[in-house]
């Protein structure tokens, strides 16, 4: 079965859906390639990411379409027609054939893009033509298939002699819905803008968007840094004017060869200072590959919140501010440089299992609930090994005496003081009761060796004559 045909093949009478054997009989020199729908879908998503240079709101429309919400963006190209022409030219340069249409609704744009006229040049339906009564001829003359209807519905309608959108729109709505179902009416209304249509945008549309186009591509790191700052200046001026700050920023550089490269930045507190943003992006700009050059940059902000600046008291103008607010710039710098998982604050978690008694949160996250501590009567080591290490040559009296001597990391430790045991079992309430085994019980001892070094060791499992006793070292006290 043919999935798609090239223009030459179409001219020779081949069509999608034709059987391969028939096609080969028609043209013995036919060149066949396996259809790869997954790769096509990936390519469409990549193209959607590339289209971010035109608008932040891009929705892929599989198998072969893209919706761009260009509301409020087209003026950057001094008009919708110019913008569409630019898009067409860039796509053509990359070897892609495209049919482009601009209209007031996604449905009308879809229909126009599939009209024969769109094959030669981008179609723009001027605003105001949508509501025209009777329907604008550009739309009215299109076949019903352009309404994104089910093929079965199109066939039923065409049996009644309804072939053009204009004919359908002229019919009374009531009988139409009764006869052909609400789906037909919905698609008609969506195309004509009587019903809103929700598009699944790749990224949530944000009004906080800034972009810069360059006359000449650049690739020097200092140029990228300046671009980043310029984009931040534009966006932050708008944010500040509305009294808002944003927590997430995304910087996209658009390369000449079409591959987008981007950086994400998360802040611990909403901010709108362009210099600070530029400084946070700066160390990571080096990691980007500018390829043959960058020709545009876009910066968008998400999670914008209204900033409520506290009244700066006079003392804080003289003295540097203290407290978590003062720490925020440092935390942001470290998070941007090292990644969010490498900067943390620890919080207690109600669990007696040592590994689970600590929870890591973002360094500036406000603690939920009272910030309790760990029970002071349970001594805990200063260093906890990521996983317990086995002790060798352990001399200990059975059944429950602490070790007298053991070897750990090629050193022999003779124990002269010991404390314990503290028995810690598995958390049986987390799994089924049948999963709990006595060999998961740990008896912890604090021991001190001949030099005064202190260790947290445990014996795993209850005493059992048939099983050798195993000892582990889990932590070190200072």
């Amino acid at each position, binding site marked *: 079965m043919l999935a798609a045909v090239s223009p030459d093949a179409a001219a020779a009478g081949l069509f999608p859906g034709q059987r391969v054997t028939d096609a080969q009989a028609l043209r013995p020199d036919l060149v066949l390639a396996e259809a790869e729908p997954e790769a096509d879908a990936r390519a469409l998503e990549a193209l959607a990411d590339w289209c971010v240079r035109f608008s932040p709101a891009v929705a892929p429309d599989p198998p072969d379409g893209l919706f761009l919400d260009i509301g409020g963006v087209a003026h950057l190209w001094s008009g919708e027609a110019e913008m569409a022409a630019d898009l067409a030219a860039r796509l053509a340069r990359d070897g892609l054939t495209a049919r482009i249409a601009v209209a007031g609704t996604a449905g009308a744009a879809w229909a126009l893009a599939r009209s024969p006229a769109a094959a030669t040049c981008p179609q723009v339906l001027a605003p105001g033509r949508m509501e025209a009564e009777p329907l604008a001829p550009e739309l009215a003359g299109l076949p019903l298939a352009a309404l994104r209807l089910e093929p079965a519905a199109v066939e039923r309608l065409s049996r009644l002699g309804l072939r053009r959108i204009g004919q359908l729109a002229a019919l009374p709505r009531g009988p139409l819905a009764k006869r052909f179902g609400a789906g037909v009416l919905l698609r008609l209304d969506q195309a004509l803008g009587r019903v809103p249509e929700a598009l699944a945008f790749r990224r949530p549309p944000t009004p906080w968007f800034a972009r810069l186009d360059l006359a000449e591509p650049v690739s020097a790191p200092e140029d990228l840094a300046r671009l980043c700052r310029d984009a931040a200046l534009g966006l932050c001026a708008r944010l500040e004017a509305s009294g808002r700050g944003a927590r997430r920023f995304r910087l996209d550089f658009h390369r000449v060869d079409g591959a987008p490269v981007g950086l994400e930045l998360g802040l611990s507190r909403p901010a709108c200072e362009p210099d600070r943003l530029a400084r946070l992006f700066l160390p990571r700009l080096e990691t980007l590959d500018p390829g043959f050059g960058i020709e545009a940059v876009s910066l968008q902000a998400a999670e914008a919140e209204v900033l409520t600046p506290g009244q700066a008291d006079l003392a804080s103008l003289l003295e540097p*501010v203290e407290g978590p607010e003062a720490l925020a710039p440092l935390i942001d710098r470290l998070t941007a440089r090292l990644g969010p998982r490498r900067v943390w604050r620890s919080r207690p978690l109600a669990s007696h299992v040592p590994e689970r008694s600590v929870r890591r949160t973002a360094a500036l996250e406000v603690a939920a609930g009272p910030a309790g501590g760990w029970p002071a009567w349970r001594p805990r080591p200063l260093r906890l090994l990521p996983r317990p290490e086995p002790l060798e040559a352990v001399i200990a009296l059975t059944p429950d005496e602490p070790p007298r001597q053991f070897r750990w990391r090629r050193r022999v430790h003779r124990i002269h003081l010991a404390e314990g045991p503290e028995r810690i079992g598995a958390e049986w309430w987390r799994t089924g009761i049948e999963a709990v085994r006595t060999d998961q019980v740990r008896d912890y001892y604090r021991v001190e060796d001949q030099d005064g070094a202190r260790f947290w060791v445990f014996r795993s499992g209850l005493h059992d004559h048939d099983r050798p006793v195993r000892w582990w070292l889990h932590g070190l006290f*200072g």
Partner: protein
Amino acid sequence: MDGDRRNRLAALRADIRRLERVAGPVRGRLSLGDPRLDSALGGGLPLGQWHEIGGEGAEAETGAAPAAFAARLAAALLARPDQRGRSAVWILRRDDLFPPGLAGLGLPADRLVGVCARDEDEALAVAEDALASPGVGVVLAEVGAVDLTAGRRLQLACEARGGTGLMLLRRPFGGGAAATTGGTAAATCWRVSPAVSAPGPGGLGLGAPRWRLRLVRSRGGRTGDWRVEAGAGGGEGEADVAHPLRLVAELGDRDLAAPAALSAAG
């Protein structure tokens, strides 16, 4: 010839004085809890400077006793009224710090920010950045070594906001010691090793942790060798942050610290 030589000597001495004055102003001093300890430091641990804390023997690898000593100092420092609202930043290379243990030594987890650096240079760069930031009272960093250049940079960072740095020297497991070039820009250099503790009340269990502290370098002070105990508060496990250390025995000069005196003190 003679006068020329004298002039050169005078010039070199002036150079040395200038180099020695790399240290910025001392922003207060932290009492270690015992006048004999404080007097060796010239009145307490100078703040707004950075200090080097190393371990000896196995502690150079595990870094437990030096970390405990540093945690006691950091806890006492954060408890000062002029450090209210400031945090401690602990920079790790190996992610094995356990906050409940630190809480037991008096350093609360909600005033501690943990950072895990990927390499030595990054750890030092983060330490420098943190020291020069507002809202940071003390920076603890686990590094292999601090050379003279890095030390000067740290000192400048300390002067920016009056932060205090505690550099914990720790070498990787099984690895050799980092090459030491001799000079250091640290205000003080400590060597910490565990010491045998006295049994707890009733002769049972473990007593408060004890350390042997060797002060091998102290700018404007004396060196020393002591045996100290973590100053414990009323309740079990509750640390007294106002008096971080309690002096158990003064060992004085290393050569005089005979084994007999050690066991008598223990």
